[in-house]
């Protein structure tokens, strides 16, 4: 069964504007790494916003399991079922790395004890040591911030992880490090990982590639 099913989805910013997505239908499954590619303005990030419940499609339905996203509490969906890694990281800059993770755990409603320790452990698995974890976000490098963003997205154990240009600001070595994490998440932790990217190098890690052009989606498998 698909984790996420997109049925005949269309999207336009206003009634008079041109449709960004036209009658798109696609399925996402657990344990698969997807890459969405396409030119700037093709609708990649829009599709990601719709999947993450940050926006609603103007036509069609998006199902999480068998639940229509437009009919469920999307705050709760974002807090518990999906982890979003934003292009600009979108971390709270007045907090430390570990505080960002604990905050996300709190928002997800986690009542587990030792959340801070779990956050340190998660960050450590992503290559962030304790000393770095205790630094404010603005004192971290782009690569470190990206890892904190990934840790935050994984902190509440979501089924789906989506990332918008996760390696956009990183060099080659850092890109490889981050992509290895995504591959591990999909293949070893059975997550559904969806990445939006411009980069062919990143797309090469994907199990399936979705190409968006003129509002239509074309799926290519390896």
């Amino acid at each position, binding site marked *: 069964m698909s984790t996420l099913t997109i049925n005949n989805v269309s999207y336009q910013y206003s009634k008079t504007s041109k449709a960004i997505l036209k009658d798109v239908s696609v399925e996402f499954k657990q344990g698969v790494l997807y890459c969405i590619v396409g030119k700037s303005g093709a609708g990649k990030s829009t599709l990601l*916003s719709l999947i993450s419940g940050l926006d609603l499609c103007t036509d069609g339905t998006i199902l999480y399991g068998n639940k229509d996203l437009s009919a469920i509490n999307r705050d709760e969906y974002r807090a518990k079922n999906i982890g979003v890694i934003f292009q600009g990281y*979108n971390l709270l800059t*007045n907090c430390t790395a570990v505080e960002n993770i604990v905050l996300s755990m709190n928002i997800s409603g986690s009542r587990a004890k030792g959340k801070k320790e779990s956050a340190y452990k998660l960050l450590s698995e992503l290559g962030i040591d304790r000393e770095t974890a205790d630094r404010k976000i603005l004192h971290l490098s782009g690569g470190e911030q990206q890892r904190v963003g990934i840790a935050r997205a994984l902190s509440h154990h979501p089924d789906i992880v989506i990332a918008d240009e996760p390696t956009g600001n990183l060099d080659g070595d850092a890109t490889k490090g981050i992509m290895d994490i995504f591959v591990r998440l999909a293949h070893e932790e059975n997550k559904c990982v969806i990445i939006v990217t411009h980069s062919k190098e990143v797309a090469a890690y994907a199990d399936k590639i979705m190409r968006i052009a003129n509002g239509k989606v074309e799926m290519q498998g390896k």
Partner: protein
Amino acid sequence: MAGTIWGYSDTTLMRGFQEGRQKIIEGRFFENPGEVIIGKRFAELNDLSPGDIIYISGGKKADTEILPLTIAGVFTDYQAEANTSDVWIGVELSDIIVSFDTLLGSDFSGIYPIMDDIRFFLTNAEASEPFWQELKEKGLPASYKTDSDVEGYNEIVEPVKKMSSVAATFGIVILLTGAVILIFLSIINIRERKYEIGVLRAIGMKKYQLARGLVYESLSLILLCAVIGMTLGGVLIKPISGMLLEGSEIAHAGVSFDPVILPLILLVAVGLGVISSLIGILYITKYEPMKILSEQN
């Protein structure tokens, strides 16, 4: 030999005894109505001792009655004993001392009360009549003359009333201005924290959770400020009122910080905090997280 009857309402006013100049040499002090102590000379000349009864005439009642008084004790006055002059002002050894109530009960003519001019400051002029009535009911002797200086009261109170009215108007203006400033500060605060709000909403924080957090934050700050303000008010109330009322007759009446008003101040502070927070929270509900983050990025 002439003698004087002295009546005292309070034994602490009997300075001769307090200072040790006068002393009971036989018997005891008067305790009950109708008891007296008499001077040593009076006792010697009339061969009187404690327990004897003397009869006094000369009061209004004495036209038809003679007042019996029981001797409780005999006193002496060392200063009067040593005095050789003809001119002596004070208790003589031929005098009689009674309680004030006994003296009033005798209804003597020619009573010369030596009393302080006692003033009471009431909260309003209308309260004076009931006040006198209450005092009489509680035993104020009829010999006390009561008088209410309503005109003087108004002269004192009117400026204070005006000042109070000006202060109330000033307070309302400050409250309204403060409310507007708080609302603007809240909006500015929310706008400044738009990014933070966008992030929290994007990772799933519900609007009500965010609003609750912001209200708690505002209330904590407001309560802290209210406590600081009230503490300062409590400390400064005396010097400021002293400065404002300087020269006034009621300056000595004393001004104090009434604790009853504390809940009201807290209520107003909390009300203002909640209103200003709610206005800011309306901003939160207006923006969608995606819009905030795309603006920021």
